[in-house]
């Protein structure tokens, strides 16, 4: 089973919502669409489902062209951010509804509903109406209805966005386990990098209607193809610094620099963009070849075990994520430390030219 988009794009009223995209999703995979609001996640899902027709390109299902086919004739299930259930039906009837429409025999409907309900921990609530359930249970009901169809393609559009933090955590842990069993192609849209990492599988990064990168989630995180992907796939946002290569040396400003090695050695001289994640920016000098930068504390935030230190460095806002509780005086000068092994280097066109060395090793 596979779903292939071949140069698929979408144009509405002269405005390009999705730039031509080519990607293949294969059977039994979890595919995350990661991007901010209005980056095109929902548009792309609608194209995959067949709810919208692409302006260009083809949609292939198991190698067969299904571009013009109606959504009803494709095996698609969809779950939305809002908890969409039939309010006048019981949970049982809700979950059974797609099976009844398909005209399945009663015994099979019962068996499949019972199985989906058990997976979603809804068995005790089968006789209740959706509005008598908590938000988490309502969304479980919608998820069960999507699962029970045995659809080949299951689209989840920010399904956990309207749930409490802790409920989100629980459901998020359950979803990968459930999909492993079903063998369908899962597509999951989210705005949160953290969620993409927890779900694993593959990730497609979206930015202004473009898929900037598609690949295994950990790889996209560790080797972002360009600065935009790196920015989208980093929470808190990635820190950036303009650097310059001259001869064998990579200048980081303030008279500091490192020898350009590996992929960097062959680069032409010029200006580059360095990116590094907040957890790799320290506020204490450590061993090794650390570079030191002057910065000014803008604000600190404490999460209990860690602190986010927001800093201003030469007009740029940086964030350092450090262990322990740090109340640092706002406005004071603070030296920050960076290991060049954690730096991504992007070219003038924002394309990655060298990944952080720890990422290459991983």
């Amino acid at each position: 089973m596979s779903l292939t988009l071949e140069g698929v794009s979408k144009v509405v009223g002269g405005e390009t919502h999705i730039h031509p995209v080519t990607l293949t999703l294969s059977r039994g995979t979890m595919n995350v669409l990661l991007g901010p609001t209005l980056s095109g996640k929902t548009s792309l899902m609608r194209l995959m489902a067949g709810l919208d027709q692409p302006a260009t390109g083809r949609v292939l299902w198991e190698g067969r062209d299904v571009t013009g086919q109606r959504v009803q004739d494709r095996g698609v299930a969809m779950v939305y951010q809002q908890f969409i259930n039939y309010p006048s039906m019981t949970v049982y009837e809700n979950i059974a509804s797609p099976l009844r429409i398909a005209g399945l025999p009663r015994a099979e409907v019962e068996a499949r509903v019972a199985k989906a309900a058990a997976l979603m921990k809804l068995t005790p609530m089968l006789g209740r109406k959706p509005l008598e359930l908590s938000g988490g249970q309502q969304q479980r009901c919608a998820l069960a209805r999507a699962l029970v169809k045995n659809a080949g393609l299951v689209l989840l559009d920010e399904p956990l966005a309207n749930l409490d933090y802790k409920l989100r955590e629980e459901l998020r842990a359950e979803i990968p386990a459930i999909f492993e069993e079903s063998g369908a192609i899962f597509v999951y849209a989210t705005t949160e990098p953290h969620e993409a990492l927890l779900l694993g599988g593959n990730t497609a990064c979206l930015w202004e209607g473009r898929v900037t990168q598609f690949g295994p989630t950990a790889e996209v995180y560790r080797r972002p193809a360009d600065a935009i992907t790196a920015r989208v796939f980093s929470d808190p946002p990635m820190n950036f610094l303009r650097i310059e290569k001259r001869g064998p040396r990579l200048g980081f400003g303030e008279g500091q620099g490192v020898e350009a090695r590996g992929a960097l050695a062959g680069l032409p001289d010029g200006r580059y963009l360095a990116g590094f994640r907040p957890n790799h920016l320290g506020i204490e000098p450590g061993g090794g070849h650390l570079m030191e930068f002057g910065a000014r504390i803008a604000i600190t935030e404490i999460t209990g075990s860690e602190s986010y230190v927001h800093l201003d460095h030469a007009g740029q806002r940086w964030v350092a994520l450090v262990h322990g509780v740090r109340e640092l005086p706002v406005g004071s000068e603070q030296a920050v430390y960076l290991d060049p092994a954690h730096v991504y280097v992007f070219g003038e066109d924002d394309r990655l030219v060298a990944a952080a060395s720890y990422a290459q090793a991983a």
Partner: protein
Amino acid sequence: MARITLSGLAHSYLPRPKVPQDYALKRIDHEWEDGAAYALLGPSGCGKTTLLNIISGLLRPSEGRILFGATDVTDMATAERNIAQVFQFPVVYDTMTVYENLAFPLRNRGLKGPAADARVREIARMIGMEDRLDQKARGLTADAKQKISLGRGMVREDVNAILFDEPLTVIDPHMKWELRTQLKALHRQFGHTMIYVTHDQTEALTFADKVVVMTEGEVVQIGTPAELFERPAHTFVGYFIGSPGMNLLPATVEGSRARLEGGEVALTRAYPALSGQVEIGVRPEFVRLGSEGLPVEIRRVEDVGRHKIVRAALAGRALDIVAPEGAAIPAEPRVRFEPGAVNVYADGWLVEGTPREREAA
């Protein structure tokens, strides 16, 4: 600005509440210090919105009093309480410009002229909208509208308190960082008393000086982020704060040793004989994976980028471990708990114990 006192406050939506379950908000006595930033944290239905509505005057408590400074405001209407509030969804006046929106609370109180104008411009600068002051509000994005809501909440200098009702719900993750730090900077600069309601622990912990954790209408702990993290007063706090939450393992505690199903753990405090259901709680961040200690079985490893979450089992009970980025998973995994990071709970509540000298060995 004012200190806010909750005195014997409780609320039930039923006319004649009898049992504790009838209360949406159980009895609370508390003082909110002047100029501090508080967060009300809990799952939906825990009573945090009820409490917020009582403070803002949208709801009259069925029992107890509420005071702003020395003034009893229990029976005062919202408008008389001199507060500001920012809602979950952006509330802007569509037909007004950004400037008019920000100036609206001032104008309604008859504040005009250069002082008011300067204030509006200062707020606009702080929320990063100074170049869009003449734009109509209705065409703006949700992010921008919520910034205006924040700005309108902040524009009056003399408010008793500013209330936030899950203000970042509709905001994208990256914008959340920006707005949250802006909010914190605004708090530092103007020193308003702020009360922030949320179900998101990160928002609560990063925003507040003190976090009030609520569940089932009850306040279970009020503390600094570090206190909530290191010494949760209740197993609910341990579970709700932290991602993943605190590991809880049934144990029998004798003096300064805890006996688990998988082995024994040394404690840094001594405990009296405990009754009821006794558990030890240890945060995943304080569990060390290595080749020493109690044997565990690893079920799944989640790579979340800057660290790994190892889902393991200790004698069949779930145990989450946070391992550093790039850490190797040993072939015969064993765990040790960081000394001092193990808390003891009896029937869900923290048992203090008495600190003791570290053993010589």
